[in-house]
C-alpha cells in the first residue's frame, strides 16, 4: 500500500491567519493548502490523500458550521477542526455532534492545533484504509466462480465437504478443490479468516440494502 503525503486544508478569510497556520503546519512536515472561502475549497482539485480541514466558523458566504452540514449531506468525508474568534457552547456542541475533531478558540495554542491535525489525519487515514480493504475484498469475491461461491457459502455455514458434495451432486474431492481455490483467491489463510471475510461482505451488503 503506497502511503501518500497527507494534506491539511485551511479555510480562513483572513490571509494573514491562513499564512500563519500554513507556516506552522508545514513546519511539522505536512502539506498545506489555504483557501479564503468554502466555495473556493470546493472548487479546488484535491489530491487523493489523507487530509483534514481547518475551518473558520465565521466565513464570507456560507458559515463554517453550515459548510460542515453540507459536506455531510454530500457524503464528503473529511475530518474537520474548527477555529473561531468567539465561540459559544451551543456552537461547539453543534459542531462536535456533527463529528468535528476539535473546536479551537482563536488565538489557539500551536500544539493544540498540531495535535488536532494529527488526530484528524490519523482518522482519515484509517478511514481510507478501511474503505480500501473492503474494496479489495469485494474484488476478490467477484473473482470467484459461481460454483466456488456456492461452496464457500456452505463452508462458512458449517457444512462438511461430504455434505456439500451430496448437496451439489459432486464428489468430495471436487469440493475440496473448489474450496482450496476459493481460499487462495480470497487470500484467506484459514477457515476462520474466510468466515470473517464473508461476514464482512454480508454486513456491507446488508448495510447497502
Amino acid at each position, binding site marked *: 500500500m503506497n502511503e501518500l503525503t497527507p494534506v491539511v486544508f485551511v479555510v480562513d478569510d483572513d490571509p494573514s491567519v491562513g499564512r500563519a497556520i500554513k507556516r*506552522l503546519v508545514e513546519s511539522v512536515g505536512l502539506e498545506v493548502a489555504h483557501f479564503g472561502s468554502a466555495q473556493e475549497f470546493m472548487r479546488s482539485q484535491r489530491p487523493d490523500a489523507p487530509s483534514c480541514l481547518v475551518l473558520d466558523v465565521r466565513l464570507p458566504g456560507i458559515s463554517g458550521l453550515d459548510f460542515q452540514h453540507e459536506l455531510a449531506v454530500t457524503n464528503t468525508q473529511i475530518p474537520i477542526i474548527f477555529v473561531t474568534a468567539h465561540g459559544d457552547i451551543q456552537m461547539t456542541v453543534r459542531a462536535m455532534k456533527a463529528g468535528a475533531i476539535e473546536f479551537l478558540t482563536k488565538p489557539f495554542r500551536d500544539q493544540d492545533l498540531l495535535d488536532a491535525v494529527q488526530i484528524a489525519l490519523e482518522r482519515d487515514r484509517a478511514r481510507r484504509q478501511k474503505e480500501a480493504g473492503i474494496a479489495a475484498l469485494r474484488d476478490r469475491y467477484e473473482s470467484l466462480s459461481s460454483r466456488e461461491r456456492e461452496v464457500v457459502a456452505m463452508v462458512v455455514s458449517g457444512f462438511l465437504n461430504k455434505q456439500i458434495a451430496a448437496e451439489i451432486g459432486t464428489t468430495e474431492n471436487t469440493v475440496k478443490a473448489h474450496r482450496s481455490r476459493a481460499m487462495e483467491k480470497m487470500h484467506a489463510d484459514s477457515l476462520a479468516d474466510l468466515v470473517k471475510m464473508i461476514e464482512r461482505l454480508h454486513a456491507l451488503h446488508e448495510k447497502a440494502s
Partner: protein
Amino acid sequence: MISANAGLTGSYDYGEVARSVVIAAAASYAALDLAGRVTAARGRVRAAWLTGGAIAMGIGIWAMHFKGMLAFRLPVSIEYQWPTVLASLSVAILSSAVALYSTSRQRMGLVDALTGSLVMGGGIAGMHYVGMAAMRLPAIIRFSPLLVTASILLAILFSLVALLMAFDLRGETRWTAWRRLGSAAVMGVAISAMHYTGMAAATFVSSAVSPDLSHAVSISPLGNNGIGIVTFLVLGAAILTSSMDRQVEAEVRQLNQGLEHQVAERTTQLEATNENLRKEIAERERADEALRKSDDRLRLVIDTIPVLVWSKLPDGSADFLNQRFREYTGLFIEEGLGEGWLEAIHPEDPASSIDVWRAAFVAGRPFEFEARLRRADGEYRWFLFRGEPLRDEVGKIVKWYGTTTDIEDRKQAEWSLQEAQEGLAHVTRLTTMGELVGAIAHEVNQPITAIVTNANFCLRQLASAAPNPDKLREAISEIVNDGTRASAVISRIRALLQKGTPNRVVVDINQMIQEVSILLRNELARNRVSLSTDLASDPPRVSGDHVLLQQVLINVIINAIEAMRAIKRGPRELLIKSAGDDHEVSIQVKDSGTGFDPLQAQRIFEPFFSTKSEGIGMGLSISRSIVESHGGRLWAESGPTGALFQFTLPAHGGGVS
C-alpha cells in the same frame, strides 16, 4: 124693579144708573189692571200696590154702589149717615184687598178661588147692605129674603168670575188691554146687576117716624157729581200709574232684556275665550309633558352611555356630572361639583391641578388630557378627558362640555404592545451588540491569532536543529504587520466613538433632560416610576453630539428604571438633577432602587459586566466611552436609598480636551 107695596114708589135716574155702570166697569178695569201690577211686584212695592190698588178699587166699587143708590129716587128726601157710609167704603176697600191678594198669588187653586170669591162677594154684599143702612129717610126698608139671598149669591158668583178673569189676565200680553176692557165691561154689568138686584130686594114703606138724622147729610147733585168725578180721578190715577208702571216695567224689562242679551253675549264670548284658554292650557300641558318626556329620555341617554359626561363653567368648576361619573368616582353630586371632582384625579398627574384645566379653558380650544381617575374602591384607571367649548353669539365661552372615557384597557394593550416592541428592540439591540462585540472580537482576534501562531512557529524553528532564517524573518515580519493591524482595528473602534461624530453641536442640557423625559414618559408610567427634576437655571451649554449624549442619559435612566423594578412596595422615584459652573455641567440621575455593591462601582463600567440577568454589560461601558469622548466623566455611587449615576461635561468654550 120697584116695590111700591106700601106706598113709596121709587124711580131711577137712568143717567145716574149709566154712570154707575161705567164706574163699575172702570173699577173692574182698574182691579184687573192692578191685579197684574200686584202680581208683577215684590216685597214692599207689592204691599204698596196692594194697598193703593185696594183703595182705588174699593173706592170704585163703593162709588158705583153709591151712584146706584143715588140713582134711586124716592118721593122723600133721603139723607145718609156718613159714618155708616165710611164703614161701607171700608168694607169695599178690605174686600178689594182680599180680591187683589187672591189673584196676585202664584197659584190659585179651586179652594183659594172659592174662598176669595166668598170673601169678596160677601164683602161687596156687606158693603151694599151697610151702604143701604146709611140711608136716612122717612120710611121703613123691608128686604125680600129671596132677592137678598140672590143678590149675595150673585155677588159671590161674579166675584168668582172676576177673580178667575183677573187671575187669567194678570199677565201682560199684547191683547191683554182689550181683553181687560171686555172683561171690565162684563164685570161692570155684573156688579151693577148685583147692586140693582140688592136694591130690588128692598121695599121702602113710608112711616111717620122721622129718621135719626144725626151725622146724616144730604147728597146734593153737586156732591153726587163730585163723588163720580173723584172716583174717576182715583181710578184714572190708579190706571195711569199702573199703566206708567207697566210701561216703566216694560222698559226696564226691555233694558233688562238688552242687558241680559249683552250679558249672555259677553258670557258666550267669555266662555269661548275660556274654552280657548282651556285648550291652550291643555296644549301647553301636552307640550310640557312631551318636553319632560324628551328631557327624561335625554337624561337617560346621558346617564346610560358608557362614558363619564360633565359640563363645566368657564372657570373650570363642574356644574354637571352624569350618573356614571358619580358612580365611578363614588362622589356625591355635591362633592363632585365645583372643583370637587379634581380630588379624584391622581395627584401625580398634571390634570389634578385646576390650573392645567384653566389654562386649557383659557386657550378656548377643544382639548384632550390623559389622567388617572380614582374609582370608588380606590383603584386608579387611565381616562381620556375631552372638552369642547360652547360659545354665545359673540364668541364668548359660556360652558364646556366634555366626556371622560376609560382608556385603561387600551392603555394596557398599548403598553403590552410597547413592551413587546421594546422586547423586540432589546433583542435586536442585544443581537446588534453581540454582532458588534463579535465583530470587534473577530477583527482584533484575527491579527492576534496570526501573531500567536507565527510566534509559535518561530519558537519551533529556533528549537529545531537547523532553524531556517528566511522562514523566521518572514514569520517575524508578519508578526509586526499583524500587531500593527490589531492596533489599527482598536484605533478604528475608538474613532467610531470619538472622531466619528461629526454632529458636534451646542447642547442645552436642561432641554435634553426634558426631551428624554418625554421620550421615556411611557416607560416611566408603565413601571410606575414617578419622575421629578431639579434643573439648574440656565446652566452653561456643552458641545457634543446631541444623539450620543441623549443615548447616555437614556441608558442611565433605563438602568435606573430597571434597578427599581425589583421594588414591590415603596416608592419608585427618579430624580434628575442638573447643575453647572463656568467649567462644567453635571447631570445626576438618582433612583430609589436597591443600589449596588460599592465594590462593583468601578466594575459596572467594564465591558461585559452586568448585574442584570439579561444585560450584556455594554450599556454603561459605551456610555462612559461616549462621555469620555466628550471630555467628561461618568461614575456611580451607591447609597442606602438607591444608586446615583452622574456625569459631567465640559462647558462649551471651556477647554475641551
